[in-house]
C-alpha cells in the first residue's frame, strides 16, 4: 500500500470527497498566509504580545469568544448536552453572560488603565511578586497542559470520525498553529480567531436548522426526547429539556446538582473566575485600542456567546431525539469515551458522547458541507490552541522570564524569547498530548486542576480591585489557601467517595456538580483568609494603589457617544435577552 494512504483509515464514520479536502486544504493555506502577511507587523513587544493594543471592539470581542470555542468545547459540550440535557446550556448562559458583563463594565477599566500585559502582571502591581509567581507559574503549567489535552482529544475524534492517523492530526495542526503564532504573535492569533469564528458558525449552523426541521420544531424535539428516553427507561426524561424547573433537588435532574451549585458555584465563582481572570480570554480584550472598545468587546462576545447553545447544545439534544440505526431503526445510545474508544467498544461499533456533533454532521451534510463542518471543528481546535499558546507565551515572557529570570531583558530580547517560547509551548503541548494518550483519565485530573487555580484567583483579583485594605500578604496567602483547600477537597473525595455528601452536599452529585461546589468553597476560603490576614498586616499607602483599586482610580469620563455606541446600553440589552432565555426554557 502507498505509505501516504496509511495516514487514512477507510473504516470510518464519514468519507471525505475531493471537494471536502479542497476546503480543508484551503483553510490551512489561508491561516498560514495570514501569519506570513502579519510577520512584518510584530517587531516590538507591544506588537507581538498585545497586538499593538489597536484592535477594534468587534475584532477583540470575536477573538475573546473564539479563543474559548475550542474543539473540546464544541464537541465536549455537545456531548454533555446529550448526557445531561439542556442543563449544559447553563455553562453558556448563567455560566458566562453575567461574568462577561461584569468584566466589561466593572473590571475592564482597571485592567486597561494600569496597562498590564497580563493578569499575573496586575497581581504583581497590586500584591507584589509572591502572588504573581503563584498565578503565573500555575497558569503557564495549566495552559500548556490544557492545550495538549485538547490536541489529543481532537486527534482521537479525527481518528474515529475520519480515520486520520493520530500523529498526523497532532503534528499538522499543531505545526500550523506554531507557525502562524510565532510569525505574527497575538495579532496573527486574533486575526485567525476572527476567521475561525465565522468558519465555526458557517460549518455548524446547518445542523440545528435541519435538525429542527426533521424533529418538527422545538415541541416535536421535546416529545421525541421524552419518548426515546422513556423507551430506554431513563429516569426523569422530562428534565432533559428544562433549564431551571428541575433544580429544586439533586435527584430530579441528570447532573445531580441543585440551583445553589448552578447559581453560586457556576455563576458566581467558576464563571466569574474564568471570564474575568483567565488570561487566555482576557488577553484578547487587553488588545483593544481604547477603553470604550475594551468595554464593548466582552459585551459583543456575550451577545454571541448566548447564541452558541444553538450550534452546540441543540445538536446534542437532537442526537437524543433523532439518532437511530439506519438499518434496524433501533435507538443509538452513545456511551462514555473510554468505553466507546476501547477495542471492545470499537468492535461493537459504539460511539461516545463527544461524537454526537460529528454524527449529526454526517447525518445532514453531504460533500462540500461536510468539508466545511470538519473545517469548523479543526478551526475550533486551532483557535483554542492559539489562544493557549499566545497567552502562555506572554505570561512566560513577562511574568516568569522578565520577572524571575532576566529582569533587564530588552524589548527586542522579549520578542525573540516570545517567538521561541511559542514553538517550545507547542512542542510541550505535543508531548502532553502523547502523555494524555497513555493515561486516559488525565482529562479528569486536568479539569480538576484547572478549577483549583481559577476559582481562588477570582477571589484574589476581585478583592484587589474593589477593596483597598487588602494587603500583599493577604492576597498572597488567600490565593495559596484557596488553591490548597481546593486540592485538599478533591483529594478527600478521591480517597473517600462518600465525602462528596459534604463537599457537594449530596451523594447524587456528578463530576460537574462536585467541581461547582468545590470552586464555591475554595473561593470563600480565599476571600476569608485574604480579609483576615489583611487586617493583621500593614496596608499599602493609597498613593501606591492609584490606578489599581476602585476608589483610587480615576476612570476617564466616557466620551460623548450616542446611545447605540454606549457599552452600558448594549450591556443592558444583552442582560434582558439573557433573562428572556431563562424564562423561555425554564
Amino acid at each position, binding site marked *: 500500500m502507498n505509505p501516504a494512504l496509511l495516514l487514512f483509515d477507510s473504516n470510518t464514520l464519514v468519507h471525505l470527497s475531493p*471537494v471536502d479536502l*479542497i*476546503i480543508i486544504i*484551503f*483553510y490551512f493555506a*489561508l491561516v498560514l498566509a*495570514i501569519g506570513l*502577511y*502579519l510577520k*512584518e*507587523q510584530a517587531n516590538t513587544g507591544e506588537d507581538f504580545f498585545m497586538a499593538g493594543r*489597536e*484592535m*477594534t471592539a*468587534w*475584532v477583540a470581542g470575536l477573538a475573546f469568544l473564539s479563543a474559548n470555542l475550542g474543539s473540546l468545547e464544541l464537541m465536549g459540550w455537545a456531548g454533555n448536552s446529550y448526557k445531561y440535557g439542556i442543563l449544559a446550556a447553563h455553562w453558556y448562559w448563567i455560566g458566562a453572560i453575567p461574568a462577561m458583563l461584569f468584566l466589561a463594565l466593572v473590571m475592564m477599566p482597571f485592567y486597561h488603565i494600569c496597562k498590564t500585559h497580563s493578569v499575573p502582571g496586575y497581581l504583581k502591581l497590586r500584591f507584589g511578586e509572591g502572588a504573581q509567581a503563584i498565578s503565573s507559574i500555575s497558569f503557564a503549567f495549566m495552559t500548556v497542559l490544557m492545550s495538549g489535552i485538547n490536541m489529543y482529544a481532537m486527534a482521537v475524534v479525527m481518528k474515529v470520525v475520519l480515520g486520520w492517523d493520530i500523529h498526523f492530526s497532532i503534528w499538522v495542526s499543531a505545526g500550523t498553529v506554531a507557525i502562524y503564532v510565532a510569525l505574527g504573535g497575538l*495579532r496573527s492569533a486574533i*486575526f485567525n480567531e*476572527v*476567521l475561525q469564528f*465565522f*468558519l465555526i458558525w*458557517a460549518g455548524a449552523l*446547518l445542523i440545528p436548522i*435541519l435538525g429542527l*426541521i*426533521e424533529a418538527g420544531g422545538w415541541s416535536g424535539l421535546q416529545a421525541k426526547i421524552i419518548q426515546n428516553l422513556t423507551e430506554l427507561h431513563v429516569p426523569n426524561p422530562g428534565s432533559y429539556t428544562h433549564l431551571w424547573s428541575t433544580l429544586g433537588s439533586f435527584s430530579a435532574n441528570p447532573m445531580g446538582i441543585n440551583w445553589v451549585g448552578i447559581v453560586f458555584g457556576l455563576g458566581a465563582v467558576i464563571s466569574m473566575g474564568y471570564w474575568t481572570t483567565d488570561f487566555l480570554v482576557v488577553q484578547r480584550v487587553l488588545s483593544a485600542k481604547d477603553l470604550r472598545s475594551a468595554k464593548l468587546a466582552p459585551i459583543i462576545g456575550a451577545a454571541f456567546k448566548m447564541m452558541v447553545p444553538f450550534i452546540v447544545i441543540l445538536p446534542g439534544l437532537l442526537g437524543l431525539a433523532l439518532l437511530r440505526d439506519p438499518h434496524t431503526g433501533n435507538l443509538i445510545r452513545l456511551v462514555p469515551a473510554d468505553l466507546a474508544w476501547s477495542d471492545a467498544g470499537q468492535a461493537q461499533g459504539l460511539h461516545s458522547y463527544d461524537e454526537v456533533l460529528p454524527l449529526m454532521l*454526517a*447525518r*445532514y*451534510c*453531504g*460533500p*462540500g*458541507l461536510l*468539508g*466545511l463542518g470538519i*473545517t469548523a471543528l479543526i478551526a475550533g481546535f486551532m483557535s483554542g490552541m492559539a489562544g493557549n499558546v499566545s497567552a502562555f507565551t506572554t505570561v512566560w515572557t513577562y511574568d516568569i522570564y522578565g520577572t524571575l529570570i532576566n529582569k533587564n531583558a530588552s524589548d527586542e530580547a522579549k520578542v525573540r524569547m516570545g517567538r521561541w517560547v511559542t514553538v517550545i509551548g507547542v512542542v510541550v503541548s505535543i508531548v502532553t498530548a502523547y502523555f494524555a494518550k497513555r493515561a486516559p483519565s488525565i482529562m479528569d485530573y486536568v479539569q480538576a486542576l484547572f478549577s483549583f487555580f481559577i476559582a481562588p484567583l477570582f477571589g484574589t483579583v476581585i478583592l484587589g480591585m474593589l477593596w483597598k485594605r487588602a494587603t500583599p500578604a493577604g492576597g498572597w496567602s488567600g490565593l495559596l489557601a484557596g488553591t490548597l483547600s481546593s486540592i485538599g477537597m478533591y483529594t478527600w473525595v478521591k480517597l473517600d467517595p462518600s465525602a462528596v455528601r459534604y463537599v457537594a452536599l449530596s451523594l447524587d452529585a456528578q463530576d460537574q456538580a462536585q467541581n461547582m461546589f468545590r470552586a464555591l468553597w475554595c473561593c470563600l476560603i480565599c476571600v476569608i483568609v485574604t480579609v483576615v490576614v489583611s487586617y493583621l498586616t500593614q496596608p499599602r499607602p493609597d498613593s501606591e494603589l492609584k490606578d489599581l483599586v476602585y476608589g483610587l482610580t480615576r476612570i476617564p469620563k466616557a466620551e460623548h457617544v450616542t446611545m447605540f455606541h454606549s457599552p452600558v446600553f448594549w450591556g443592558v440589552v444583552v442582560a434582558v435577552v439573557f433573562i428572556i432565555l431563562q424564562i423561555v426554557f425554564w
Partner: protein
Amino acid sequence: MKAGGSLSIWFFTGLCLGVNGALIFARGLYELVHPPPEPVVLFELHANVWWGAILLILGITYCLHFSPARERKRMSGNS
C-alpha cells in the same frame, strides 16, 4: 481593523466564506443533476445549494466592501 498594510481581517473573512460558498454551491448544483446514490437525511431540501449561495453572497459582499483598493482610499481619506 487593518493588518498594517491594506488588507483587512474582514477581507480575509470574505475570501474564506466566498471560496467555500462557491465550492459548496457548485457541488450542490452538480448534485441537482446527478443525485448521490446514498443521499443524506433531508437531501430533498438541497441545503448545499442555498447554504453555499448564502456563503458566496456574504463572501463577495465582504470582499468588495473591504477590498484593498477601498481600504487604501479610506486610509488616504483619513490622513
